[in-house]
């Protein structure tokens, strides 16, 4: 089994070791299994007929099966103190960033011990321990990632801010304005566009002038790279450079990654706007299979891959079981967490001054 530094994989040079590749594989499989299991759990109680407001998992659910390579390829270059913001489709990114899987799952199930005590839900995961946050409003997670970069810069630290967004979000002001702000100040920020070809029912060519979202970087005088293959090793290569550039104070980068949408936009999406052929094409291009093949060609046997998969499965299962065991919040808990300071602010006493001149 080779564990060399420079290997030729998929036609480009990479410095990823087999050990690292296995760790990519484990995270990717975990993220995939997680989404598949959540899909099952979500549907329970919502069918027949699909009622979004029934069942054990509340609300909408956007699953990221097929997008694992982008999350894992990027987040493996990050430390806990680096900040990541994710959009409405956040689970794979959260897993890759090391968000507490149990508490994240409890949040998705709307439980009291969830990351946000059941207040946020699946599109609004916050884990300050690993500097992870989300927003369900398209591109609105991007400016706060720039804020994390700004903070690192002001404090002269070498951490970075990373914003994930979908290809549908690249025309949103919050993204474009953030590119400029980050670029003007050479902030340590990386923008990751996950291109899954679709923004709900809208194909990219209908809503974006350029089919290469990384070209958005051009007008803001920063590097833009498109990773044209759904390959974690290629993503990792691009991200290593971009994250390194940011850490070393050389400014922001845009990376767009081709990923695939193996499921509907949200659970319950009839996908009538999408051809069978397209759905099939997305399912056939599987970054996990691709990585497994690479691992095999590096002498990793099927047994080892199966072991990794089992480990991922049991980790996911454990998180789901734990989450389902957690208490539901009390109705009155709704009123907690509004303020850090009591309603009157940091003080409850009036200052004691005599102001001159009040009488004339």
């Amino acid at each position, binding site marked *: 089994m080779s564990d060399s530094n420079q290997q030729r994989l998929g036609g480009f040079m990479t410095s990823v070791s087999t050990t690292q590749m296995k760790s990519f594989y484990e995270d990717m499989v975990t993220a995939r299994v997680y989404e598949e299991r959540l899909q099952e759990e979500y549907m329970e109680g919502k069918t027949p*007929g*699909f*009622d*979004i*407001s029934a069942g054990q998992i*509340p*609300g*909408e659910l956007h699953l990221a099966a097929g997008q694992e390579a982008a999350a894992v390829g990027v987040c493996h270059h990050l430390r806990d103190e680096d900040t990541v913001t994710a959009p409405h489709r956040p689970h794979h990114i959260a897993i890759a960033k090391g968000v507490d899987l149990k508490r994240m799952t409890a949040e998705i199930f*709307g*439980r009291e011990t*969830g990351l*946000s005590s*059941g*207040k*946020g*839900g699946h*599109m*609004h995961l916050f884990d300050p321990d690993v500097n992870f946050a989300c*927003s*369900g*409003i*398209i*591109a*609105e997670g991007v400016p706060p990632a720039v804020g994390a970069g700004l903070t690192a810069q002001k404090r002269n630290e070498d951490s970075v801010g990373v914003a994930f967004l979908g290809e*549908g*979000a690249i*025309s*949103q*002001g*919050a993204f474009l304005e953030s590119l400029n702000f980050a670029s003007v100040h050479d902030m340590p920020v990386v923008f990751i566009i996950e291109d899954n070809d679709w*923004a*709900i*029912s*809208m194909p990219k060519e*209908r*809503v*974006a002038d350029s089919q290469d979202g990384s070209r958005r970087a051009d007008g803001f005088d920063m590097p833009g790279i498109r990773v044209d293959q759904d390959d974690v090793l290629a993503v990792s290569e691009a991200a290593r450079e971009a994250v390194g550039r940011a850490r070393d104070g050389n400014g922001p980068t845009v990376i767009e990654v081709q990923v695939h949408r193996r499921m509907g936009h949200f659970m*319950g999406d009839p996908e*009538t*706007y999408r051809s069978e052929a397209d759905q099939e094409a997305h399912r056939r291009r599987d970054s996990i299979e691709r990585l497994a093949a690479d691992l095999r060609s590096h002498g990793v046997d099927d047994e080892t891959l199966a072991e990794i998969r089992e480990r991922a499965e049991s980790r996911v299962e454990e998180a789901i079981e734990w989450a389902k065991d957690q208490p*539901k*919040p*009390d*109705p*009155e*808990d*709704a*009123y907690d967490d*509004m303020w850090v300071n009591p309603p009157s602010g940091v003080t409850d006493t009036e200052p004691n001054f005599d102001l001159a001149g009040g009488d004339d």
Partner: protein
Amino acid sequence: MAQQQRQTVERTRTMSDAMVEAIATEMRENEEVFYMGEDVADYGGIFDSTEGLLEEFGRDRIMDVPISETSYIGAAVGAAQEGMRPIAELMFVDFFGVAMDQIYNQMAKNTYMSGGAVNVPMVLTAAVGGTYNDAAQHSQTLYGTFAHVPGMKVVVPSTAYDAKGLMHNAIRDDDPVAYMFHKRLMGIGWLPAPDGPKTAVPETEYTIPFGSADVKREGDDVTVVTLGLHVHRALDAAERLAEEGIDVEVIDLRSLVPLDEETIRESVDKTGRLVAVDEDYQSFGVTGEVITRVVEDDPGSVEAVERVAIPDIPIPYARPMENEVVPDSEDIQEAIRATEP
């Protein structure tokens, strides 16, 4: 509502069908009417607001747009100022923040700020409301936020019949109209509606005036003033209280701007008790406004006042907490009982 029609209408429609029917009719009659929004073409609107329109009108007039609310809502303002009749959809009203300037400072103010030299005959459609655990960024109604800034009419249908007539009126209005439809009322398969919003709907076109509240249930004891989904929750509360001998009148505002004060006052003159109900945040909003209009006119006209709204917190995700904060029939019943002498 239907009793105003001379001939009996049998044909029933969901609220989304009724909305779409009005839009289609206006588009047939006026080439300058067009619809822009995310997922309004092939998808037919996430909440069925444009279902079937692409087939008839094509992509030039049923336009999927980039996810850039500022640009397409602003473009609707511009096209309206050119004299076209655009309809722009905010998929969820919660996303208005992204395009706040175009809505608040351009759409709503250009008529006045131009001294009437220009006008903005556009409709801004937006899905509103919670009850399905979509959390704080996807569950608001923002009724008060929209009604607060002068310069746009604000319309909130609660039934298919009203939805159609109000939509015709909205498209024909020479001023900007925010048309806020509640997701729970549309009749979407995956978001089952309560009984009530699906009504008889005349096939022919008709307009319902703005500023004309509708008494959805007559009663002598207590006046409930509400709108949107909560019309149905108030009607449910009224039915239950009827068993206790409390006779509740339910007024559906149908539009916030203009606000039909007269219908509210007439009712309160009769009942002497007022319960204002809505699905927006309590403070600085619809319920406070409704009560103030009555009280400032004649402080003596009302013996008891209650309000039921979302407490001043973002809408939580988990079901027990969302149910706690979104008013239901029981909350309304309790408020009504509290006005009893």
